[in-house]
């Protein structure tokens, strides 16, 4: 449905959105991320791939400081968003997370109405001045989340009553309702059927126009379809990072090659 050729157009001048330097993450004594350096570009979809437990989620959660909520987690090194260190003591993680949105692996809608699920973020950030504006944001986000047609007649129904795939699209819509600059997605399609997956992938491709999107995935095909850049993690190391086409057709590192061809993982 999506060919990699299309995604490589119009990417001549790219800016770095996030740059990570010498990032180490420890869970207590476990060294989960080892010396990762990476430049994530703006208006680009970057895929994180790698075997289970290699630290993809951990690194992703560093990018919006969700790891702060884990007591034993310790992060060192620098992560810069638009050149500003997000781990600087002056930075409030709450403000950061409004800029860097996140979609989790397991759909986690609030046990509230569909409307309130979407409206919650805009409300706490004061993005709407009145009900009409809020309605507009809700509709726009649900449309972009490719779920509007399914829920437009039951916005008052609880979000938890939707199917797993619908819930995940609701969560994506919720994440983009706050107009983040970066969208982090941790295996967003692991609970979705092929049709919903295709819709989400289409959505990701569209989001690329305005955001920088980072997606963790276990599906090589998905990484190849939606991303322009791919990072391969292995045992906490960033083994290889480059153009998606390059990684999948001509990887430099033997570990990357064996993973892609299905020998480790």
């Amino acid at each position: 449905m999506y060919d990699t050729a299309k995604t490589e157009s119009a990417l001549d001048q790219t800016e770095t959105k996030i740059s990570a330097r010498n990032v180490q993450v420890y869970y207590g004594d476990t060294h989960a991320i080892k010396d990762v350096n990476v430049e994530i570009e703006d208006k680009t979809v970057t895929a994180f791939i790698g075997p289970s437990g290699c630290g993809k989620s951990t690194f992703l959660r560093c990018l919006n400081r969700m790891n702060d909520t884990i007591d034993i987690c310790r992060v060192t090194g620098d992560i810069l968003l638009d050149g500003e260190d997000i781990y600087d003591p002056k930075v409030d993680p709450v403000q950061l997370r409004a800029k860097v949105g996140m979609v989790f692996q397991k759909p986690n809608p609030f046990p509230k109405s569909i409307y309130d699920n979407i409206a919650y973020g805009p409300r706490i950030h004061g993005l709407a001045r009145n009900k009409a504006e809020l309605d507009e944001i809700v509709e726009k986000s649900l449309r972009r989340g490719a779920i509007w047609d399914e829920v437009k007649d039951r916005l008052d129904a609880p979000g938890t009553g939707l199917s797993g795939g619908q819930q995940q699209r609701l969560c994506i819509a919720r994440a983009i309702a706050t107009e983040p600059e970066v969208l982090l997605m941790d295996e967003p399609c692991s609970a979705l059927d092929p049709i919903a997956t295709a819709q989400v992938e289409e959505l990701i491709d569209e989001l690329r126009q305005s955001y920088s999107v980072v997606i963790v995935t276990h599906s090589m095909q998905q990484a190849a379809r939606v991303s322009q850049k791919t990072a391969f993690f292995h045992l906490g190391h960033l083994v290889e990072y480059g153009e998606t086409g390059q990684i999948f057709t001509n990887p430099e590192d033997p570990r990357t090659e064996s993973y892609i061809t299905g020998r480790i993982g």
Partner: protein
Amino acid sequence: MTDTSQQGGGPAAPARKHGETLMKLTARTKRRNAAERRFQAYGIAAIGVGLLMLVILVVNIFGNGMGAFTQTFITLDVHLDQSKLDKKGNRDLEDIKKVSTFGYAPLINRAFETKAADLDLKSGLKPKAMADLLSKSAAAQLRDYVLADPARIGQTVSFRFLANSRVDGYMKGRVSRESIANDKNISAAQLDLVDELIAEGTVRRTFNPAFIFGADASDQRPEAAGIGVSMLGSLFMMVVVLALALPIGVAASIYLEEFAAKNWLTDIIEVNISNLAAVPSIVFGILGLAVFINYMHLPMSAPLVGGLVLTLMTLPTIIISTRASLKSVPPSIRDAALGVGASKMQAVFHHVLPLAAPGILTGTIIGLAQALGETAPLLLIGMVGFIASNAPDGVAAGLMSPNSAMPAQIYEWAKRADPAFYERAWGGIIILLVFLITMNTLAVILRRRFERRW
């Protein structure tokens, strides 16, 4: 896993044969099924024993206590003689107040005399002996009635007197002609009179709201005792407990559960809270005595002090149940809120707390129900044994003026010698149980109603 690997360890395990029929149970399956049936039988037996105990308890309580809700009354036509009650005849309230209950006794005697003459009774009892059928508070009852409206002086009114506890007991079957042999409070002749009056409709047993709403009475007048005032005492204590324990408990739990770092200090606090929940309630009583009364000089026997002591006792219950219900909210909800840029406090107050609320409420109600039935700590702060004769007027008085509490009142009644009080103790237990069952039902309903799926 192959067949050979399974057989390696056990001694001579029979090989599983393929192609065996499913229609015949193997010995192993039979044994397993028998074990399961045995276990179910134990369970049913256990439930049966429990239910039997409950039925015995309930039957006992209601059998003994229902009598307290009805009371025997004697209705007489009393002439409110002006020459006795208001000699000057100018209806001056101050003058009328000067007539003590002794001044009213002759009126009651006269009323009995008239009654006896009307019915042509030949009991031969003196009017004084007839009037002894009434409660010792009969004259005071009549005096209150007159003082409430002095214009009644001079009229003949039909007045419903409380019968004394022996007559009441006779009506309820507690007192019989055999049992009064050594009782100098009532004679067989008096019971004959009662029989005649019953036949004629003057002596009646009816529902007695004064038991539920009235104040306790002295040892001599069990027929006049009610639980209402100590119910108010309990109510004011519960208000104090709710107003203090709920906010303090919930705030402490939220802090401990959501904000506090997990280190040795919070571990110690956690252990101490659990220990506190297991501390015998009388310890809280002596603490209350030392701190609130001896040190802070709050009044003895005041519901405020009782409420403070019970707050200490209820806090651990509320904290433990609140923390449990906060814990049961899935972390993914917190992640979701933080992920869209909510602060920690917003995540807690907008999402976690509403989901935990039913659990918190349930815990609070159960804590309150425990506190409501608690007697031991009240012993030490003087709420047991104190008899408040009037309902407090106003909230301040309700909190500060000495009072009793329902369980303390029940204990007090059970302690007294007269069997009429024994009946009232059981009656009090019925009222207390009604409160407790209502509260627990409320807790269950709340839990059912707000139960959520995620």
